[in-house]
């Protein structure tokens, strides 16, 4: 652990698409050990910020520091190896691999086995116990041999979190982890996020405000690519600008 209070610091983060500013001058600091939520109306640039931070997009200008190290020009895979791992908005599982194999894909990454095309895949069985542990953590232990493509939607999202957790990331970025989920799944995922946040920092984009209020220590509201306001849930609910942006009315 480095001494800095912040895991991630983005300064003046800007992304321009053909003259349109999707993200404009965003300054974002994520405090170590916190759960930080990024909210805002549709098209506010939340996912773009996510893609910029995880280097799936290159910023037009601005600087990103991860643990004090400048990662503005690093590749997505490189920052993942440094402990900053993301999930995706559309559930990103490997549909034709089993649930167990999905988790093993992540577990295999730090092992250095990957380029060994002459080894039998049996060597991967040594990871089964650890993979089962992760599946149990998200309630998927009974589905270990099922192809991920056959899982119901909510379970796919759980699997994605298990896969992300398999890398034991210091900093987890979750893109709408409860989007499109049934109510009971939402509370399960929400509880799961709370549980796994113990020894790490989490940044999440989320539409479900009850999840946000439940989990987040800090909330940043984005609007038209810029930060509207930042604070805890109490502060935000009393802020007229937020109401305006979110409800489209000045009174509620």
């Amino acid at each position, binding site marked *: 652990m480095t001494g800095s209070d912040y895991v991630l610091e983005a300064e003046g983060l800007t992304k321009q698409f053909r003259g349109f500013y999707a993200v404009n001058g965003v300054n974002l600091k994520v405090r170590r050990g916190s759960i930080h939520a990024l909210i805002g109306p549709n098209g506010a640039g939340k996912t773009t910020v996510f893609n910029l931070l995880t280097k799936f997009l290159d910023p037009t200008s601005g600087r990103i520091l991860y643990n004090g190290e400048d990662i503005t020009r690093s590749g997505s895979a490189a920052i993942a190896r440094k402990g900053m791992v993301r999930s995706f908005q559309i559930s990103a599982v490997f549909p034709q691999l089993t649930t167990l194999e999905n988790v093993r894909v992540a577990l295999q*990454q730090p092992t250095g086995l990957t380029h*060994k095309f*002459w080894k039998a*895949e049996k060597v991967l069985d040594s990871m089964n116990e650890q993979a089962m542990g992760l599946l149990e953590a998200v309630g998927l232990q009974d589905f270990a041999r099922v192809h991920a493509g056959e899982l119901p939607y909510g379970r796919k999202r759980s699997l994605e979190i298990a896969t992300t957790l398999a890398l034991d990331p210091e900093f987890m970025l979750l893109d709408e982890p409860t989007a499109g989920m049934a109510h009971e799944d939402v509370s399960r995922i929400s509880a799961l996020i709370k549980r796994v946040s113990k020894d790490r920092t989490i940044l999440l984009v989320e539409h479900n405000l009850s999840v946000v209020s439940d989990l987040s220590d800090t909330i940043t509201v984005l609007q038209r690519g810029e930060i509207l306001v930042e604070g805890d849930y109490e502060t935000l609910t009393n802020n007229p600008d937020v109401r305006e942006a979110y409800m489209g009315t000045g009174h509620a």
Partner: protein
Amino acid sequence: MTAAKENTQTMSTGQKISNALSDRRVHLAGFGVGILLIAIAPYLGLYPIYLMKLLCFALFAFAFNLLLGFVGLLSFGHAAFFGMASYISAHTIKVWGFTPELGVAAGTLVACVLGLAFGSLAIRQRGIYFAMITLALAQMVYFFALQAPFTHGEDGIQGVPRGELFGFIDLSQTMNLYYFVMAVFILGFFIIYRAIHSPFGQILKAVRENESRVTSLGYNVTALKVGAFTLSATITGLAGATKAVVFQSATLTDVHWSMSGEVVLMTLLGGMGTVLGPLFGAGIIVTLQDYLAGMGSWVTVITGTIFVVCVLTFRRGVVGELTRMLRIHS
């Protein structure tokens, strides 16, 4: 592990059977039978030359399928590796006096280097752009083969002596040659089979299913794909170099773009992404070419028609459809 126990109980019969089918022991037993069949095939009335051609093309299709079926990359330039390896093997054996195994090794090595170079250049492109770049690079190899003095242009390299394997096994004896080709085929097949079922192959499959996710988990996807491309080119070279020994020649046909098309056809017809599909695809195409040889350019029309029917009615290919039917009916 109680979880694992529950897991078997909740599995449907279909899943149990498909799990059993993918069982390593079942695979090994299948390979044993397969090897035996290949070994005795010439004694069942099949022409050894036809069988050797089939084995070379099947190996070519296996190598191609590694890329198309397991990484999701459509290369349209594999004739470059097949043809170039066949030229190198023919030239080194005929002019430099290499023994057959050294000639084949030289051809394979050149295909490997060429594969690494082409792979590194093309891999950052996706989909149709990737296919176009591989095609363009392969066309450059074609023109090289047309112009370079050692390939003898339109004539090709003819009359390559079969020589003596390791200096003492006479390959001009057809059955000796047959078992040499069989050994090369088994070696190539096992390298590919192992690569598919290795930690490397596991990540390749993941790349095929969701490339961004693999990147986000910290993998250098570009390096993985270049690796797979190089491996595929190498085994393609092994097939091409061996074919030159069998037919005692290397010609422009092997390096022509239509050869790249033929291997796509074989792979799709047999079932891309299945382990044994390419063998069946190559079998169908080679058999058609042999039996319809008298019909001239009608062969192309007939294979074309078969391809259209295949794409319209059984997209998974012969082996893909059979596996699916087995799963449904059990």
